[in-house]
C-alpha cells in the first residue's frame, strides 16, 4: 500500500476480491448465527413442563404451600391436592368463584351465591358468613384479614370492595360501581379491577386513593407477595404493569383471547400469564416476552406459586404445567449479552473483512509501520467516521440481522425462535407467493418489452431529426412528464382505469362500445393486463436517455460508411445501432429485470395485489408480511430469495458484459 499513489486509490475495486470477501462474509455470518443460536437457544427465558393432569375440572385454585394446592372445581367440589393426588375433598353448595390462602394454613373460599367460608388443610370449616351478592374476587391481607369484591350481577352498578379483619369483622366497605372482576392487596392498599377497565386502590380506611382507566375491560389481577409489582389483564389479551401510584408502566397485547389468570413473581421479576385459549406467557418485569406458547387447549384458569419458585398452571380440563421461571430474571441479562455478542460479531466481521481486503501475508513490521501511518492519518479517520458509523448501524447491521432473522420466526408478540429452513419451506406452500411468482414472470416479460421497444424507438426518431433545436425540444418534451411524481402518475392511472368515470370506460362509451366497460383493475380477467398497460405509451425516461446518449457515442464515420454502402434505415439499425447500443440495451434490460423483481409500489397503489391474487407479486407479499402480518422472519426470508435471484442476475450480467463500467450502480 505504501507505494500505491493515493490519487488512483479506489477507482475500481477488484471485483474477484469483493466477490470472495462477500462470500466469506456470508459464510461467517451463517456460522455466527448458528453458534449464537446454539449458545442462546438452549434454556429459554422460561420453559414449560407438563405434569400429570388433575382429575378435576378446575374453576379456581390457590396454593397453600410448595406442594399443596386447593382446587374449586366446576362440579362444586373443593379438594386439596398434594403432589398430584387428592388428599381431601368436600362438596359445596355452589360454584367456587375465588380462593385465597390465609396465614395459619387456612384458606378462604368465595362462592357465587355470596358465601365466604374459611377452611383449613383438612377442609374443616372455620369462620363463614354470607353476603347478598356474588363474590367476584378474594385476596388475603398480610395481617390475616382479607379483602373481597362483591356485587349482584354482571351489569349491576352496586359492586363493593370490602375489607375484613382476621376475625371476620367488616372494617370497611367501599362502593366502586362497575362489575369488579378481581381484587389484590399491594402496598398497604386493596386494588380492584372492573369491566369498565378501571384499576382502583382502596386504602385501609376504605377511602379510594387512585383510579386509572385502561383501554379494555379488565378480568385478571395479580400482585406479587412482596408488593413489588402489580399486573392486570384484559379481555383482549393485554397485560399491563401498574405502579404503586396507579400509573401504567407498560402494556403488552399477548393474544387475542381473554387473560384468565395472572401470577406476579416476587422481586418484580415478572409475571406469568394464562389465556382463554390455553396459552401461557411469561414476561419479565420490563414487559419483555420470555415465553409464549399454546400449552393446552383448555383455558388456563389458575396460576399458583409452585415448588422452587416456579409457577403451576392449571387448565379447566385439569391439565397441569410447571412454568419454570427461575431463569426469567437472567433472561434480561441474557438478552443484553445477546446484543453485545451480535455487536461483537459484527465488529469481527468488519475486521475480518478489512483484514481480508488488506491482503494476506503481511509481516508484523508492516503492521507497526501501518500503525504509524494510521496515527498520522487520524484526521482522515475522523472525517470518515460519522459516515461509516451511520452505514454500520443502518445498513450493515440490518443486512446481518436480515440473515439471522430469516431463520427465525421473529415477530413482535412472541420470543424469537430459531426455525431453521421453515420460512423457506413455507414459501413453497404460500399460495399468494406462488401466484405472485407467476405474475412477476408475466410482468417481467412485459417490462422488458416496454423498456426496450418504445424508448429505443423514440430515441432513434429524435436522433435522426435534422435540426438541433427541434432535437432539443423533442428530447425535453419527452422528459417533461417526469415532473409528475411517481405516485401521482400511478394514482392518475388508477383514475383512468376506474369503473364508473374512468377515462378508458368513458372512451368506450363515447365510441359506442359501452358494453365493454368494466372495472378494469377489479376483475380477475383484466387486472393484470391493466397493470401491464398502465403508463402507456411507456416512454421510460431513464431508458430513453440511456439509448439517446448511446446513439450519440456511435462514431459518425460508421454511419457515413453505411450511407456510402447504400444501407437503408432498417439495415443500418440492425447492423450498426443495435450492436453499438449493446451496452445500453444490457443496462436497460438489467434495470427492467431489477424493477420487476423488487418493485411493487405501482401494484400496491393500483390494486393492492387484488382482486384475489390476480396481480400479486412476491415483493408485495414481503411488504404485507412486514406491514400487516408482522412476520418478520418470513418477510426477511422472501427478501433473501429475491435478493438471491438478483444476485444471479448480476452474475449473469457480469458474464455477458465484463467490461461495463461499474460506476455507482445501486441495487437499493
Amino acid at each position, binding site marked *: 500500500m505504501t507505494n500505491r499513489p493515493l490519487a488512483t486509490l479506489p477507482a475500481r*475495486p477488484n471485483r474477484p476480491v469483493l466477490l470472495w470477501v462477500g462470500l466469506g462474509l456470508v459464510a461467517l455470518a451463517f456460522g455466527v448465527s448458528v453458534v449464537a443460536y446454539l449458545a442462546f437457544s438452549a434454556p429459554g427465558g422460561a420453559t414449560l413442563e407438563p405434569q400429570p393432569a388433575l382429575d378435576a375440572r378446575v374453576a379456581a385454585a390457590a396454593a397453600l404451600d410448595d406442594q399443596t394446592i386447593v382446587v374449586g372445581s366446576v362440579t362444586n367440589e373443593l379438594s386439596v391436592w398434594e403432589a398430584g393426588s387428592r388428599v381431601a375433598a368436600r362438596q359445596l353448595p355452589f360454584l367456587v368463584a375465588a380462593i385465597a390462602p390465609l396465614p395459619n394454613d387456612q384458606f378462604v373460599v368465595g362462592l357465587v351465591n355470596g358465601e365466604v367460608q374459611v377452611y383449613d388443610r383438612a377442609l374443616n370449616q372455620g369462620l363463614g358468613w354470607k353476603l347478598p351478592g356474588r363474590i367476584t374476587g378474594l385476596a388475603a391481607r398480610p395481617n390475616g384479614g382479607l379483602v373481597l369484591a362483591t356485587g349482584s350481577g354482571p351489569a349491576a352498578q352496586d359492586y363493593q370492595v370490602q375489607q375484613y379483619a382476621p376475625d371476620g369483622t367488616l372494617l370497611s366497605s367501599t362502593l366502586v360501581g362497575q362489575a369488579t372482576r378481581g381484587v389484590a392487596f399491594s402496598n398497604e392498599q386493596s386494588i380492584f379491577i372492573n369491566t369498565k377497565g378501571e384499576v382502583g386502590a382502596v386504602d385501609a380506611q376504605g377511602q379510594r386513593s387512585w383510579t386509572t382507566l385502561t383501554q379494555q375491560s379488565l378480568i385478571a389481577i395479580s400482585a406479587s407477595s412482596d408488593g413489588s409489582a402489580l399486573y392486570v389483564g384484559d379481555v383482549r389479551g393485554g397485560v399491563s404493569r401498574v405502579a404503586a401510584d396507579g400509573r401504567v408502566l407498560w402494556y403488552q397485547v399477548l393474544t387475542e383471547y381473554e387473560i384468565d389468570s395472572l401470577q406476579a413473581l416476587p422481586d418484580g421479576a415478572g409475571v406469568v400469564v394464562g389465556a382463554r385459549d390455553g396459552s401461557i406467557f411469561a414476561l419479565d418485569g420490563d414487559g419483555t416476552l420470555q415465553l409464549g406458547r399454546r400449552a393446552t387447549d383448555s383455558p388456563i384458569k389458575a396460576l399458583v406459586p409452585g415448588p422452587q419458585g416456579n409457577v403451576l398452571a392449571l387448565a379447566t380440563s385439569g391439565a397441569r404445567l410447571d412454568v419454570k421461571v427461575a431463569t426469567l430474571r437472567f433472561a434480561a441479562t441474557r438478552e443484553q449479552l445477546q446484543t453485545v455478542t451480535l455487536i461483537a460479531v459484527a465488529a469481527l466481521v468488519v475486521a475480518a473483512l478489512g483484514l481480508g481486503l488488506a491482503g494476506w501475508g503481511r509481516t508484523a513490521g508492516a503492521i507497526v509501520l501501518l500503525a504509524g501511518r494510521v496515527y498520522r492519518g487520524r484526521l482522515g479517520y475522523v472525517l470518515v467516521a460519522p459516515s461509516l458509523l451511520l452505514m454500520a448501524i443502518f445498513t450493515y447491521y440490518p443486512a446481518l440481522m436480515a440473515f439471522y432473522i430469516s431463520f427465525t420466526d421473529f415477530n413482535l408478540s412472541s420470543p424469537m425462535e430459531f426455525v431453521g429452513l421453515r420460512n423457506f419451506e413455507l414459501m413453497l406452500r404460500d399460495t399468494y407467493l406462488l401466484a405472485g411468482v407467476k405474475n412477476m414472470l408475466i410482468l417481467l416479460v412485459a417490462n422488458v418489452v416496454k423498456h426496450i421497444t418504445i424508448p429505443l424507438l423514440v430515441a432513434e426518431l429524435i436522433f435522426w431529426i435534422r435540426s438541433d433545436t427541434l432535437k432539443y425540444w423533442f428530447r425535453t418534451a419527452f422528459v417533461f412528464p417526469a415532473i409528475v411524481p411517481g405516485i401521482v402518475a400511478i394514482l392518475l392511472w388508477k383514475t383512468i382505469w376506474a369503473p364508473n368515470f374512468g377515462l378508458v370506460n368513458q372512451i368506450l362509451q363515447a365510441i359506442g362500445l359501452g358494453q365493454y366497460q368494466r372495472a378494469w383493475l377489479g376483475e380477475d380477467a383484466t387486472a393484470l393486463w391493466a397493470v401491464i398497460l398502465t403508463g402507456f405509451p411507456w416512454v421510460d425516461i431513464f431508458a430513453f436517455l440511456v439509448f439517446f446518449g448511446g446513439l450519440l457515442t456511435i462514431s459518425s464515420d460508421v454511419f457515413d460508411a453505411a450511407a456510402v454502402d447504400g444501407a437503408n434505415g432498417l439495415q443500418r439499425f440492425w447492423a450498426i445501432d443495435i450492436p453499438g447500443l449493446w451496452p445500453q440495451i444490457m443496462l436497460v434490460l438489467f434495470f427492467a429485470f431489477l424493477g420487476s423483481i423488487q418493485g411493487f409500489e405501482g401494484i400496491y397503489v393500483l390494486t393492492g395485489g387484488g382482486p384475489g391474487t390476480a396481480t400479486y407479486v412476491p415483493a408485495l407479499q*414481503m411488504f404485507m408480511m412486514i406491514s400487516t402480518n408482522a412476520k418478520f422472519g418470513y418477510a426477511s426470508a422472501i427478501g433473501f430469495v429475491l435478493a438471491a435471484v*438478483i444476485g444471479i442476475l448480476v452474475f449473469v450480467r457480469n458474464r455477458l458484459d465484463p467490461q461495463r463500467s461499474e460506476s455507482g450502480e445501486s441495487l437499493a
Partner: protein
Amino acid sequence: MTDTTTVASVSHNRNGQARLGRLRLRAPGLWTLLQFGLLLTILFFSAIPIVMMLTMSFRPTILIYADFWGLPWPLNFANYTSALIYLLAPMLRTLFVYVVSIVGMLICAAPAAYAFARLKLPGGMQLFSLILLIMMIPGTILLTPRFVLANQLGLRDNLWGLIVFYIAGGQPFAIFLLTSFFRAQPAEMFDAARIDGATELQALRSIAIPLAWPIVITIAILNFVGIYNDLIWPTLMLSSPDNHTLTVALQRYNPGGGPVEVSALPDVGGQAAGYVFASIPQLLVFVTGMRYFIAGLTSGAVKA
C-alpha cells in the same frame, strides 16, 4: 459516469447533423413525415394523463360525473383550496424531511469523500470498497431488518425515523460521486492552500466544495426525486395521520368524500387538484435543475 458527459453534449453534436444531411438525400419526405407523425403521436398519448389531471382539477367533481367530456371553463379553484388545506401540511413535512436529510447527508458524506480523495488514509481503499459493497446489497434484503431496527430504536411514526435512514441510505452514492469529483480536482490547488497555511477542513470548505457545486446539486436533485417520491418506507413507518408525508397522504386523499377505500364515487376533481399541487415542487426542481436532473438520472445508472 460516461453517460453523464455524453448526454451533456447532446445539442452540440455537429457531426451528427452532417451525416444526417447525407443520409437525408436517400430518405424521401415520407420518412420525415412518418418520423414526426410517430413522435407526435407518442407524445400525445404520454400527455393524456397530465391533461386529464389538469382539466379535472379545474372542474367540480359533480360536473365531471355529469358530463365527463365537458371543458374546464369557467376555471373553478375550489378544488385547489381544499388541496391547500389538506395537503400543505403533508407537503411541508416531506420538504422538511428532504431538506434535513440532504443537509445531513452532505455534511457526513463530503468530509468522508474528501478524506478518501485527498488525504493519506491507510486502509482507505478497503473502506471505500466496503462502502461500494453497500450499493450491491439489494433493497429487498434491507427492508425488513430496517423496519425491525426502527422499531427497536423507537423511530416508528416519527419524521426523524425517516430522516436518519435517508441520511444513512444516501451515504454510499453521495460519497462515491463526491470522491470521484474531488479526485479530479487539481492537486496543486490544495498544495498551494496548504502552503498558505490552510487546514484540511478549510481546504475542504473553501476549495473542494465550492468547486464541486455541480455534483452537489446533482446529488441534491437525485435525492429529491428519491425522497419526495418514496412511498414504501413512509407507509411502513408513519402510522398516525399527523405524521403522514405527501405520498402517504395522497394515497388516501379524497377531500369531498369519505375514506378512499370505501368510496364508490371519489372526489376526482379534488383529487386531481391535489395531484397537481403535489407536482409543483417537483416541477420547480425539474425546471431549475433539468440539466443536473438528466445528468444525474443517467450518471452511472442510478437507482432504478
